[in-house]
């Protein structure tokens, strides 16, 4: 039997597959489809300091092999997430990652600090790259110094391993990755969505109320693989890979590129059973390509 387990700072995963932030809520809805214990981990939807309503609708659009979203970080606020949502997920035997967002560094600190008091949360994913938050967000993800700064400040207040989620909307992903590693990041999440737009011909206007949205799904997979492959040799912290993963073969592709685990976002929408079905196929795929374990595939695309 193929050994699917992988170990990451703060998390021991049965298998390297977890749902991506914002695509799985806090797990309740998908728990109606399958047993969440099958998952490697769960990444929760973004938490901000207070409740946020998010953007006006429409918030999503479909694109060729992908979609745009501009949800705008709608969430009930970190306190309610800790009180209402974390306990639901804590009942499962699955590591929990909290996705931390904010418009100011102080808000990131506040949210991160709050999760110190949620013992079931195993790690933080620092969302410095949400392209749909107009006040802040975007700048942190676009500038290495600001990214390093928010990383450092969050590390200073948090007891948990901190994974920094990078934006692909940059000319130089390697510099970004090195900057946040130096600032103390325990891991990287790569990647968030590419900024895109769709114009609705009948209205002669951008379809999304927010005008721009984040492009996700299979369309962006080659960009994610390229960025992970580029970053891997330059960092020694692990990478959680994401961007267009739909099949077990895709998971192996990300591991070969350098990811230690992966997150699945958009594919949950096309198929609510995407995660467990991918996990079920993993042993066959690892076996077919000659790997006895998930761990031994990590980064092997860099071998001479």
């Amino acid at each position: 039997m193929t050994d699917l387990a992988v170990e990451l700072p703060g998390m021991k995963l049965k298998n390297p597959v977890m749902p991506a932030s914002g695509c799985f809520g806090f797990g309740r809805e998908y728990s109606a489809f399958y047993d969440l214990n099958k998952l490697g981990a769960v990444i929760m939807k973004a938490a901000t300091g207070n409740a946020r309503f998010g953007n006006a609708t429409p918030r999503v659009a479909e694109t060729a092999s992908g979609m745009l979203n501009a949800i705008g970080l709608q969430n009930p606020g970190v306190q309610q997430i800790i009180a209402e949502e974390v306990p639901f997920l804590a009942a499962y035997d699955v590591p929990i990652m909290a996705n931390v967002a904010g418009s100011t560094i102080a808000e990131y600190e506040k949210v991160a600090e709050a999760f110190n008091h949620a013992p079931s949360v195993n790690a933080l994913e620092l969302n410095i790259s949400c392209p749909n938050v107009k006040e802040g967000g975007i700048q942190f993800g676009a500038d290495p110094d600001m990214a390093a700064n928010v990383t450092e400040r969050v590390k200073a207040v948090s007891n948990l391993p901190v994974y920094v989620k990078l934006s692909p909307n940059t000319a130089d992903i390697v510099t970004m990755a090195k900057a946040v590693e130096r600032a103390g990041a325990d891991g990287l999440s790569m990647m968030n969505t590419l900024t895109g737009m769709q114009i609705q011909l009948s209205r002669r206007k951008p379809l999304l109320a927010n005008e721009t949205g984040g492009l996700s799904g299979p369309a962006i997979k080659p960009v994610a693989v390229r960025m992970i492959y580029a970053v891997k040799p330059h960092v020694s912290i692990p990478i959680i890979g994401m961007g267009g993963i739909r099949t077990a073969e895709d998971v192996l592709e990300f591991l070969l590129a350098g990811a230690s685990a992966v997150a699945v976002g958009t594919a949950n929408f096309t198929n609510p059973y995407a995660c467990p079905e991918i996990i079920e196929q993993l042993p066959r795929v690892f076996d077919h390509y000659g790997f006895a374990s998930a761990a031994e595939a990590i980064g092997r695309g860099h071998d001479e």
Partner: protein
Amino acid sequence: MKKRAEMAVETVQEVASDTIEMKLYHPYIAATARPGQFLYVLAEGHTLRRPISIASIDREQSTVTILFKIIGSGTKHLADMEAGMTLDVVGPSGNGFATSETSVQTALLIGGGIGVPPLYGLAEELQQKGMKVKAILGFQSKAHVFYKEQFERIGQTFIVTDDGTIGHHGLVTDVLDEAGEFDHYYSCGPIPMLQAVQNKLKGHSGFVSLEERMGCGTGACLACVIRTETESGYKKICTDGPVFAADEVIL
């Protein structure tokens, strides 16, 4: 509880201009579906599923019927399906119309275009419960009219068209007075129509069925929110809806 199901396509028929009626077989879906719920349908090669209302339910034959208009590439793909193929759906999705709790005597159904199908299943159910049903159905033109006879068999039916090629020439709200008394109304159609109905029938008890672009279709992504007067300030159309009390939502 909704499930992913492979439904067998039994018939596919164009019942009006660009409007397809499709009968689908699946014992679980047919047994559990309620009027006003929808199927979240996969169109091959597409990332997002398409929400399509259940237009009627035949529990004996284990079938449900959907009706949809060809709008873009997803519905075009669905229209090209043939009997014998299978359709991948997640359903029955959403809350549906709450007909059991109501002590309605007369119901007024107000549908616009592709908002008409879910009202048909509702009409059938209300009739079975012994209630009186009246319907105002709005369409673009005569070529777009469907289910006129079916509704007429159930109750008094007013047809309204944008261009006057059949029925009243104008808007569904124009014939509200003509339709007379009723206890509850049920409305489904484009937002501007629902707003007009909500306005004109302020004070009346009523239900509206809403549309919004969806991501997950299952309550997790918050793509499909609508502002409400409730504490959280919003509801999700895909799971809390698509049917809401008319005074609950802010259109």
